[in-house]
């Protein structure tokens, strides 16, 4: 299990090298979140809560490891300034079987959306605005 919070970009290929290699892994799933240029967005600033962020994500990741038969799980989340096309974050899961790898990755994403202390501020043609949490993201938690 690996959790990292950083301002620097990351490389998917590098991060996945050797990921889950110690288990008898048959399935790896990754999710990558990317900054969209929706509504003329020119840049984004992600704020986080340094004292809490890694702990909160580790708790979510540990929950995923205990609920599914995962051999490994990885979460990287960036903060600071980002522009459209930049990777915001990624999760990866490794398991024997594909269903567990898929479900655990979706679980991680749903919880990171609403339970990891990050806040996005978007800058576009109409100025700056904090991204509002979506009801559907909160609702997504109820399926787990």
């Amino acid at each position: 299990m690996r959790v990292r919070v950083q301002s620097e970009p990351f490389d998917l290929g590098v991060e996945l090298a050797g990921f889950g290699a110690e288990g008898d892994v048959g399935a790896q799933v990754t999710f990558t979140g990317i900054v969209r240029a929706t509504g003329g967005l020119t840049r984004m600033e992600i704020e986080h809560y340094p004292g809490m962020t890694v702990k909160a994500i580790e708790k979510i990741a540990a929950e995923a490891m205990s609920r599914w038969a995962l051999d490994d799980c990885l979460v990287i989340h960036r903060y600071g300034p980002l522009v459209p096309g930049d990777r915001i974050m990624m999760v990866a899961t490794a398991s024997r079987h594909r269903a567990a790898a898929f479900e655990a990755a979706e679980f991680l994403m749903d919880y990171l959306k609403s339970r990891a202390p990050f806040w996005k501020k978007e800058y576009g043609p109409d100025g700056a605005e904090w991204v509002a949490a979506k009801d559907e993201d909160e609702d997504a938690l109820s399926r787990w």
Partner: protein
Amino acid sequence: MLDVLYFAWVRERIGEPRERVETGAATVADLVDELRAREDRYALAFSDLSALRVAVDQELAEWDSPLQGVREVAFFPPMTGG
């Protein structure tokens, strides 16, 4: 003494990211009442609690969570990670 932290638009409304607060508040809700009474910028930031979340010692908490022995309280809008 408590460290009180503010994030995102709560930080912007309060005007600072953190401060030391001298308080005898028993719960988070009591602390909010004290802060609200201070100045308009606090009253504004805490005007709608349903739009806010709170963490106590870096764990998500509730408005009625006790503050005894607590070192750090943080207020922020619903999180938008991922």
